[in-house]
């Protein structure tokens, strides 16, 4: 497990630093996607997460889901052009999963890259440490906040 101050980056995942998301290769060509520990900390207590519908085609950089906390709202962006093949209804029912289990039960969507769209720019945990450190400095974030029940 890579760590930046208290922020955790599990070794079995890949990361897109600019979009502050993690990806898990499912083995069938699809990717599970979720918010990083850093992203959930910046958002604060998350109260809504609305993943897009299954079957929706999403262009690179466009939203896979909308996440809301008390006073903040933002998209979870697609790291490449893709189709949503599954969505996690559990995070829509209880968005605090994104704070409590960002890397496990808090996954948001599973996507299949669009034809001709090759995932690029993804980093493993060790390689993502320095870019994420710079990202945190840019957002004036010293360390991650882990709510009660947080589990990696």
């Amino acid at each position, binding site marked *: 497990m890579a760590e930046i101050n208290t922020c955790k980056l599990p070794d079995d995942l890949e990361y897109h630093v600019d979009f502050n998301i993690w990806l898990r290769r499912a083995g069938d060509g699809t990717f599970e996607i979720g918010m990083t520990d850093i992203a959930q900390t910046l958002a604060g*207590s998350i109260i809504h997460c609305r993943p897009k519908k299954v079957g929706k085609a999403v262009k690179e950089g466009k939203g896979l889901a909308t996440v809301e906390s008390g*006073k903040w709202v933002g998209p979870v962006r697609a790291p490449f052009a893709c189709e949503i093949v599954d969505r996690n209804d559990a995070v829509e029912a209880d968005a605090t999963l994104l704070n409590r289990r960002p890397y496990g039960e808090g996954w948001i969507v599973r996507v299949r890259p669009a034809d001709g769209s090759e995932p690029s720019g993804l980093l493993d945990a060790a390689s993502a440490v320095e870019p994420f450190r710079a990202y945190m400095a840019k957002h004036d974030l010293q360390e991650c906040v882990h709510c009660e029940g947080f589990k990696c």
Partner: protein
Amino acid sequence: MEPIYADAEYQDVPYEEKKRLFDQVAQDMRWETTLYGCYECGICTAACPSARFYDFSPRVFAQVMAREDVHSFYELLNDSVWDCSQCFSCTRCPRQNNPGAIITIMREVAVNNGLQSAKDALKAYSRIIYKIMSTGTQVAPDMLQPDFFPDWGPDVENVSENLDVWRRMVPPETMHTTELAWDVSEKTRVELYMIWKLTGNLEMIEQIDDGIFMILEEVMEELLEEHGYDIDDFDSVLEE
């Protein structure tokens, strides 16, 4: 032109850029109604609640703009302009100056030009922008979260955890909402989206936060499409 003050900030920003922004304020249709000369009596600052808490003075805005001090204007545009609470207590000016309105115009110029100060000031309030533009109500009961309202003490945790129950204590049915201050009809939202689009407000948000812009555009597009409107072709709406 040299900066007026030796320790003036933003000396690296060309005079022409500062003047360009100053002119956008001075060319605003409301500008002529905001400033009629300043006695320097300080009534505006004495009445100003923000002046009590910040290094902020509405009188400075009146004087800087009256002097057409472009350098100091640019400093204000990148800092103090966001300290105003827009309560317009300053309109008790004996000359009928309106520093609050000067600030309104300056903020619009800062937003329209995507200045970093505007992005920073609005960053913490993205959901409020989202709420007001997607529903017309800016405050949602579920904004009451312990990490956003630590000054409410332990009560806020109880309120946030049992919000739907507390909301049902409010008599009118329209108030039994947690994500909105009150129910907003679909017809109202359709009209609201047309207004944001036709007045250029939606594009203005794109300058500040492309994430919110993207979310809003999708929300609006979906509802407008359901009602037979194309968000990118409003000519037919205007003809109607």
